[in-house]
């Protein structure tokens, strides 16, 4: 083991907000040796991102107090002058951020932003810097880099933007790369590509990596050591295989246990019976764009499928595959541009028929923040549908529903912001269940939650399903989660269903190439298996 490039001792980070002080990081210490990769893993609020930012001194001038010591490549980041830190940033220790959408300045061309960063550290003319920008863009896999160098960030896809940011780092050849949730906002196949890219670049340049992630599987395949954080403190630190394979801390063990396994088969219920929902050649076309430039987007293009009475149908797909649009059309939040959807034999395009079955079609939404009205108590939110449908909307009934989804009925008069994400999702479920629907469409119900919470919600849905004899449509991008829940799975890509089948059959023997690539991209917990998958992917995509 060579000497440390990053050395953190007793790091404490306090955030001050309106008289309140929140301790984000509480006495953290670790070292990173040159060329090595360290994964910092933790759930939201564990302090992992604050740690990452502190390495580049990015808390300077903000409302945070940073104490302890941070040594990066021989520079004391906490004590150094602004200029010294500036020299360090990008040039020797670079960072890739979570949200590629906002990490680049929307007003400037991608190439110009790379040129700017490059010239901040290298005394070269614009021409040479531009050449370098094209070179690194090309290296990170931006097709036609010589032309795309003049593109604006919004003209790039999410993955390309993340590549561009990596290119910016690459241009400066730093010794350490800090990647803060670099793939969280990306689809699973793109995530794999980005992780592979970072992996390859490390192999080429020998730079050290700090990978901050909430996803244990992402860490597993990409780092040498893992540091597990909880509430600002390190709970476990060691080689990836040890920490993830045989966790010693209780917290780590729970965390690992909660991770949904892609390869784990489930006891599929035998589903027969006639279809409850028949989707017949459904299309959805959106007109988007600003006043200057309107384009038509075909979100769903000719989907035909049946949802059988009593089954749980999983719909998986990456962003933009049309899965959410399809789900919203099934509950008739959206009117299909063409095609027909029948629920229990009734055509949903007919408003009268819709009114009759409205209550039977309910939905659980992805974003627990936006799905509850922040200005109304959760009791009101739950009672409202009952009231609209002329049902018993008494407090007693609402309390029962709260108890049903595992919440304290006494909190009936509280407001959404007083609940955690998982609890809010339970409230959303209570609201949907109150009307005793026959079909419950869950649109990414757990994607915004931490893994441990994910598992709880999935268990709740399963128990409600059997209790109320629900037919379930489960829309998600996470293949492992879908496998846990569904009897049958439909894979969507570019607005169409490319494969539909029994869950285990589909996961174990995918036939469509897209399904194959999707499954191959899923990160796995076992570092060894991850290495293998990476090799396989390398073969899959030339």
């Amino acid at each position: 083991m060579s000497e440390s490039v990053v050395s953190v001792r007793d790091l404490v980070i306090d955030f001050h907000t309106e008289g309140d002080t929140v301790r984000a990081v509480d006495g953290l210490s670790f070292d990173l040796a040159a060329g090595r990769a360290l994964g910092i893993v933790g759930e939201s609020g564990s302090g992992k991102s604050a740690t990452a930012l502190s390495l580049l001194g990015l808390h300077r001038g903000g409302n945070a107090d940073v104490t302890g010591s941070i040594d990066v490549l021989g520079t004391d980041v906490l004590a150094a002058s602004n200029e010294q830190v500036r020299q360090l940033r990008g040039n020797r220790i670079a960072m890739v951020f979570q949200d590629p959408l906002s990490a680049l300045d929307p007003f400037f061309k991608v190439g110009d932003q790379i040129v700017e960063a490059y010239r901040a550290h290298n005394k070269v003319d614009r021409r040479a810097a531009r050449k370098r920008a094209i070179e690194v863009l090309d290296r990170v896999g931006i097709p036609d880099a010589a032309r795309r160098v003049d593109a604006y960030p919004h003209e790039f896809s999410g993955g390309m933007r993340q590549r561009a940011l990596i290119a910016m780092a690459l241009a400066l050849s730093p010794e350490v790369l800090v990647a803060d949730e670099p793939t969280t906002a990306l689809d699973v196949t793109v995530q794999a590509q980005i992780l592979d890219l970072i992996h390859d670049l490390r192999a080429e340049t020998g730079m050290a990596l700090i990978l901050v992630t909430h996803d244990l599987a992402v860490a597993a395949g990409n780092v040498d050591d893992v540091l597990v954080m909880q509430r600002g403190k390190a709970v476990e630190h060691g080689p990836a295989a040890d920490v993830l394979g045989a966790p010693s801390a209780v917290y780590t063990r729970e965390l690992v246990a909660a991770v949904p396994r892609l390869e784990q088969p489930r006891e599929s219920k035998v589903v027969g019976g006639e279809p409850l929902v028949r989707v017949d050649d459904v299309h959805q076309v959106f007109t988007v764009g600003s006043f200057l430039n309107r384009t038509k987007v075909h979100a769903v293009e000719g989907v035909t499928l049946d949802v059988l009475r009593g089954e749980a149908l999983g719909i998986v797909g990456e962003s933009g595959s049309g899965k959410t649009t399809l789900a919203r059309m099934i509950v008739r939040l959206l009117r299909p541009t063409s095609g027909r959807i029948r629920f229990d034999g009734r055509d949903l395009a007919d408003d009268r028929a819709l009114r009759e079955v409205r209550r039977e079609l309910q939905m659980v939404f992805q974003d627990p923040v936006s799905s509850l009205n922040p200005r109304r108590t959760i009791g009101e939110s739950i009672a409202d549908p009952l009231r609209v449908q002329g049902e018993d909307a008494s407090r007693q009934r609402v309390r029962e529903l709260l108890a049903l989804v595992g919440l304290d009925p006494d909190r009936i008069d509280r407001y959404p912001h007083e609940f955690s994400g998982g609890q809010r999702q339970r409230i959303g479920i209570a609201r949907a269940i109150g009307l005793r629907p026959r079909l419950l469409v869950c649109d990414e119900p757990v994607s915004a939650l931490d893994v441990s919470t994910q598992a709880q919600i999935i268990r709740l849905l399963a128990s409600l399903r059997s209790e109320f004899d629900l037919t379930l449509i489960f829309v998600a991008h996470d293949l492992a989660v879908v496998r846990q829940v569904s009897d049958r799975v439909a894979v969507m890509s570019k607005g169409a269903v490319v494969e539909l089948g029994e869950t285990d059959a589909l996961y174990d023997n995918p036939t469509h190439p897209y399904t194959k690539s999707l499954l191959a991209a899923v990160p796995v917990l076992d570092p060894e298996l991850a290495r293998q998958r990476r090799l396989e992917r390398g073969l899959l995509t030339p």
Partner: protein
Amino acid sequence: MTAPSEARPGFRVFAGRFRTDRAAVFGAVVAGLLVLLAVFAPVLTAIEGQDIASFHSDLVDSARGGVPLGPLGGISGQHWLGVEPQTGRDLFARIAQGAQISLLVAVCATVVQVFLGVTVGLAAGLGSKLVDTVLTRLADIALAFPVIIFSLALLTIVPDAFPRPLLLALVIGVLGWGGTARISRAQTLSLRTRDFVAAARLSGAGGFRIARREILPGLAAPVITYAALLLPTNVITEAALSFVGVGVRPPTSSWGQMLSTATTWFRSDVMYVLIPAVMVFLTVLSFTLVGEGVRVALDPRTTRLTRKAG
């Protein structure tokens, strides 16, 4: 997550933030005093022993255009703020009554503006594309139109029998809803895509119910914020309209009306112009401070909402 129980979301947070804002607290105190002055104007005037209409020819210098006799515009134990030039009427009585009129008109006008603006904003935000386009254009016009021309025309059309303060409030309100409408529309557009609105639709709720139950509560914060800043603007507008002679009718006084006659006296009777000017300034300043405080306390990030919307 904030834990403590409270009646409304964040009300305590709001009150706490507001209380720490020294400027806002100062504004609230001054605004409160002004409201008290307005409410108790008749009582205070009675204590002083004066009324708004009595002329005091003996207190002004007729040959010099009617400037008040005595220093500082004739301030004395009988006339706390001195007397009006030419007429010799008691200034304190007129200022106190002016507070009544100015505040009443400004508050009523704000209510009208908010009511219209929110209605139009909701309709535009929830209605069809055509409705939206038409209403948005209307709001644009309302925002940039030379309101003064219309106020003048409107105020001369309405018969004298119609109570002037009410009319002023209506005219200012009816012509000044553009900003509130824009904000309401923008907020409605952002709220209507939220999943809780979808959930309401799934429960079979109609458009009106959704507007009232789901959207309207969400408009409260930005609209209250904006309204708090509208109020001082309306004080100025009332002053301006009274100033050009279409305001309240004599012998009723309002600050704008006083200012319009007073400004010419800057040299000969500085108190006469200073007093209403300071009152207008204090009102605008205090309500603006309160409005700013409310804005910051409600949501530190609404900063741009007031003008960016659209």
